């Protein structure tokens, strides 16, 4: 009968756990949850005009805003939302956030489950999936009714949020990719800094020089032959006068271009100037703090400019500088606008309030004072000037780089449905070459036929 006493003890333990330790915390939460729900229900009063937003008579609304990011960004965005709620007391903003991978899993589930947040952070890689499946609102409607002011946005930045002439997203920050290097390492190795307008040949020569001068200890760069379709390969295709996709959703580049691309990387690999396939794979998904560049195993690294300051923080000596993506002599400019965007979902019950929030986020000094260049340089020109004095040197270098390269940018076609699958095929074939499983010729042929199947 000993056991029964023990059993009772165990159940007591559970109950203490439930009601003793956490009871108070838990209860509060549930109450606050229901409060918000009831706030929502009050919303069928008189329709307030969007212009007298802060007026006390405005109807109460609750919107949800979601983003991906690290701890620091979470602090920044929470503070921006707090300021917005002060400015618009009748709008409550629920915040949902998570790391990059978690973010997209959750957003997809919420969207499928008819419970998408009102304001969502959007990315060029995913926007096609959402916009082409009718999950996002045409934001021109809220621009027309005046909640969202884009008058300070350059036309090219606005265009970068359009798919088939419909405005699906607005950039919170624009950024440009480039190649970063640490001045200290280059000084130490006695290698000249790359030129802002360097070519692929320069890139190969510099990589080889790094490898030689370091006695084979340091590679030129990571293997960028595969992985994602953009920016690296996309720049190469655009410089060759092509692009990833055509307007009507077909593959936009030729087998020759792809062959040239993979051949260039294969030569570097054969020379040992870039890591072997296994090492590349090992570090492919390593966190920033542990990747080949930060651990000093490569000297050149391709990143978006807004990450310069993240990388700067990882090094005790030297400055992180950045140059353009390598050029193809006589070729076009590869540049197109990239960035981090905000969208309103089609399912949103409060698109006007959502638009007011985005307007505050991208246009107000209160917001940009905190945002600075968190996800790229502000697209709003005035705000771009406003944040400049607030930046630390690494951030300032990023802004300078973005503004300089932005001049080369030209519009880029958005991917069709199925881009993720095409990318998987691209990656698989590039890896197969790296591991010596396929010849370049066969990999190109396999990819082209595979991509055709997917897109048709």
């Amino acid at each position, binding site marked *: 009968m000993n056991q029964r006493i023990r059993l009772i003890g165990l159940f007591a333990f559970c109950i203490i756990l439930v009601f003793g330790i956490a009871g108070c915390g838990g209860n509060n939460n549930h109450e606050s949850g229901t409060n918000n729900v009831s706030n929502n229900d009050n919303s069928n009063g008189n329709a307030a005009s969007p212009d007298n937003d802060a007026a006390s008579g405005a109807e109460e609304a609750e919107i949800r805003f979601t983003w991906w990011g690290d701890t620091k960004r979470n602090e920044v965005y929470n503070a921006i939302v707090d300021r917005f709620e002060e400015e618009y007391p009748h709008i409550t903003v629920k915040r949902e956030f998570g790391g990059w*991978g978690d973010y*997209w*899993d959750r957003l*997809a589930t919420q*969207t*499928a489950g008819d419970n998408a947040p009102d304001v969502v952070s959007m990315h060029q890689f995913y926007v096609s*999936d*959402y916009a082409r*499946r*009718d*999950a996002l609102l045409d934001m021109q409607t809220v621009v027309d009714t005046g909640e969202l002011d884009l008058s300070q946005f350059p036309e090219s930045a606005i265009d970068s949020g359009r798919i088939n002439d419909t405005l699906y997203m607005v950039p919170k920050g624009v950024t440009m990719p480039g190649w970063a290097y640490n001045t200290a390492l280059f000084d130490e190795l006695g290698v000249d800094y790359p030129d802002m307008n360097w070519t692929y040949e320069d890139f190969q020569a510099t990589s080889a020089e790094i490898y030689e001068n370091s006695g084979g200890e340091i590679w030129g760069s990571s293997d960028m032959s595969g992985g994602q379709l953009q920016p690296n390969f996309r720049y190469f295709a655009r410089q060759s006068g092509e692009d990833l996709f055509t307007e009507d959703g077909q593959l936009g580049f030729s087998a020759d271009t792809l062959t040239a691309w993979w051949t260039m990387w294969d030569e570097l690999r054969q020379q040992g100037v870039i890591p072997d*396939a*296994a*090492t*590349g*794979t*090992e570090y*492919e*998904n*390593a*966190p920033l703090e*542990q990747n080949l560049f930060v651990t000093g195993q490569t000297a050149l690294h391709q990143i978006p400019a807004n990450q310069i300051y993240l990388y700067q923080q990882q090094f005790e000596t030297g400055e992180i500088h950045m140059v353009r993506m390598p050029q193809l002599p006589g070729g076009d400019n590869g540049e197109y606008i990239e960035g981090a965007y905000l969208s309103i979902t089609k399912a949103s019950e409060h698109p006007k309030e959502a638009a007011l929030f985005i307007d505050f986020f991208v246009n107000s000094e209160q917001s940009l004072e905190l945002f600075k260049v968190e996800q790229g340089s502000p697209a709003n020109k005035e705000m771009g000037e406003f944040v400049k004095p607030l930046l630390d040197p690494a951030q300032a270098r990023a802004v300078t780089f973005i503004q300089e390269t932005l001049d080369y940018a030209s519009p880029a076609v958005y991917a069709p*449905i*199925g881009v*993720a*699958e095409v990318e*998987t095929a691209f*990656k*698989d074939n590039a*890896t*197969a070459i790296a*591991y010596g*499983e396929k010849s370049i010729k066969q990999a190109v042929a396999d990819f082209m036929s595979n991509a055709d199947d997917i897109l048709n």
Partner: protein
Amino acid sequence: MQTWKRMWARNGVGYLFLAPWLLGLFTLSAIPMGASLYLSFTEYDMFTSPEWSGLDNYVSMFGDDKWRNSLQVTLTYVFLGVPLQLLFALFIALLLNRGIRGVRIYRAIYYVPSLFGGSVAIALLWRQLFGREGLVNTMLGAIGIEGKNWIASPDTAIYTLIILLIWQFGAPMVIFLAGLKQVPTELYEASTIDGAGKWRQFRSITLPLITPVLFFNLVMQIISAFQAFTPAYIISGGSGGPLDSTLFYTLYLYQKGFTHFQMGYASALAWFLLVAIAFFTALIFATSKKWVYYQE
């Protein structure tokens, strides 16, 4: 009335105890499962309404090389990993079931790897152990053997995941321990008097009496290893690389569903897996009458 009464007398108590589970079955399990079965016959991109496509998903599955590869990877993982893990768990449980000093601490220590679950720390750790400059290669180097990049070579990557499975042997170990505790001590005492050696005691007393938990562990570990997702996801960063050598079945299914937005196809993959697991489980159940002993 009479028949109702008789039915109640025969079934009432049973169904009373089963009631919570039945309620859960018909709501929380049956609805989502039914929905996914339906979706497996449709083209469903998650955001727009599913469109009926008949057997298309199942047909294209059989022409899908990546699918066939993922099935093979998973079968290797299950039929190599699970027996090794169970052997190891049983071995340690037997060691820890003796009255050695500090056994409580040891038991807790041996459970530590399982506490980590699918933590990201595991990914860092595995690279530190099995990477190009990992601990394993350092140790091999010390005795003059040139190692390789275990974690990123297509022919060895899957084995590092099997090692991870074995290393996280805590759950079956605890279940074995609980089972060993149910072996009545009187039986050992009696056999010692009979002069039986340790090995014979194990063969003729311990092993038969723990066959119910062995059976349980075998079935459950096979079911869960078939659906293993997290280890490959965290270690390959969701890619299943290198060269798809760690592309587990569920990882591929996840890619299809959540990355490629082909939830209909993913559902078909899932239902095929269900049938495969059911087949192997049924096989184990069919043989169980021959080797599992209950005291009842």
